[in-house]
């Protein structure tokens, strides 16, 4: 049997259209209805004054789908002093109040939309293994000492209590929340996502980038690891 060439071509084209980075879905009516855009940016460009919530135009690069769908139904606090653009940020008293809550059907629809928003041209899977306990102790020293990460980010202490600074997003559930590929890209070049952030820039070598990513992905609320 001979499959017509045209058929193959159209098939390939469709496949690219669905999976390609240009595959952002149309913004659902829900965004307007729930006023998500008054607080969040859905496209890069200058933020409006009131948009003092995390940017979502790279949500598909950043979040794990399961976490996202759950967050939209049960929002939780990640930035203990608010987003860095919040006028109350430096005082520790964020101006934005309670987060809208979506029902399961709305959350599913919104998650599909958000997961289609991407800025990374390509993001090949990292496939990093979990760190051995010994390596983890070594990277912990990088995190808490050499690079001062813990001065701004919550992590776990030995008894698994959250511990650390609050000006950066808490990392205590990062392993369920963030995609390792995104964490890696963030540590490599945060400017690809935030023009100017309050986190210091680092020039990590490849090895350190991977180690820190593995270390961050180890942080899970529901899984103490070994």
């Amino acid at each position, binding site marked *: 049997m001979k499959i017509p060439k045209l058929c193959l071509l159209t098939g390939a084209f469709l496949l690219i259209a669905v999976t390609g980075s240009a595959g952002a879905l149309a913004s659902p009516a829900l965004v307007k209805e729930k006023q998500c855009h008054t607080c969040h940016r859905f496209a890069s460009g200058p933020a409006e004054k009131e948009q003092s919530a995390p940017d979502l135009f790279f949500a598909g690069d950043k979040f794990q789908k399961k976490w996202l769908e759950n967050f939209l139904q049960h929002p939780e606090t990640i930035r203990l*002093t608010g987003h860095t653009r919040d006028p109350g*940020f*430096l*005082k*520790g008293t964020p101006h934005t109040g309670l987060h809208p809550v979506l029902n399961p059907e709305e959350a599913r629809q919104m998650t599909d939309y958000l997961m289609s928003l991407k800025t990374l041209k390509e993001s090949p899977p990292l496939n990093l293994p979990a760190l051995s306990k010994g390596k983890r*102790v070594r990277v*912990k*020293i990088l995190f*808490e*000492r*050499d*690079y*001062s990460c*813990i*001065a*701004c980010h919550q*992590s776990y*202490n*030995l008894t698994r209590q959250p*511990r*650390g*600074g*609050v*000006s950066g997003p808490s990392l205590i559930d990062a392993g369920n929340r963030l995609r390792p590929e995104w964490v890696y890209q963030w540590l490599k070049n945060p400017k690809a996502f935030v023009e*100017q952030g*309050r986190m*210091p*820039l*680092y*020039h990590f070598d490849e090895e350190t980038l991977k180690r820190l990513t593995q270390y961050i992905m180890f942080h899970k609320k529901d899984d103490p690891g070994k």
Partner: protein
Amino acid sequence: MKRAFFIIAGMILWAFSAGCGPDPAEEKSATPPAESAPTTPAVSPTPRAYPVTARTRKTYQFYCAQCHGAEGHGNGINAPYLTVPPRDHTKADYLETRSDAHLFTAIQKGGLAVGRAPCMPSWEHTLDESTTHSLVSYIRELCRCEAL
């Protein structure tokens, strides 16, 4: 009673083991943030050649205030969670014992590089040298002091 002792002992250990939020057992290699003689590096900046501008103040608010506080009193939002408190930039008694070169290196290379606590990050890839010099000038303005 006994328990209280252990808690206090634990806290002391923690505070002196010199990671930024360390777990004592893991921090053997850390340099304690003692009030010892600082390593004064061989840079000779002339900070007053780098005056405090509106940009300097903005830079301080944007990056430094999250720990050192908006007015530099060392009471930023992270301060309660750090094992070593951020330096109060308005207090002359410590800052006049430190050279401008020391402050410059502390900002560029971080606390560890000048024998201080690692809670103070390195800003060398974030801030260029002239901005860093102007921050030193700004800290001198805040403490109303010069190096002795």
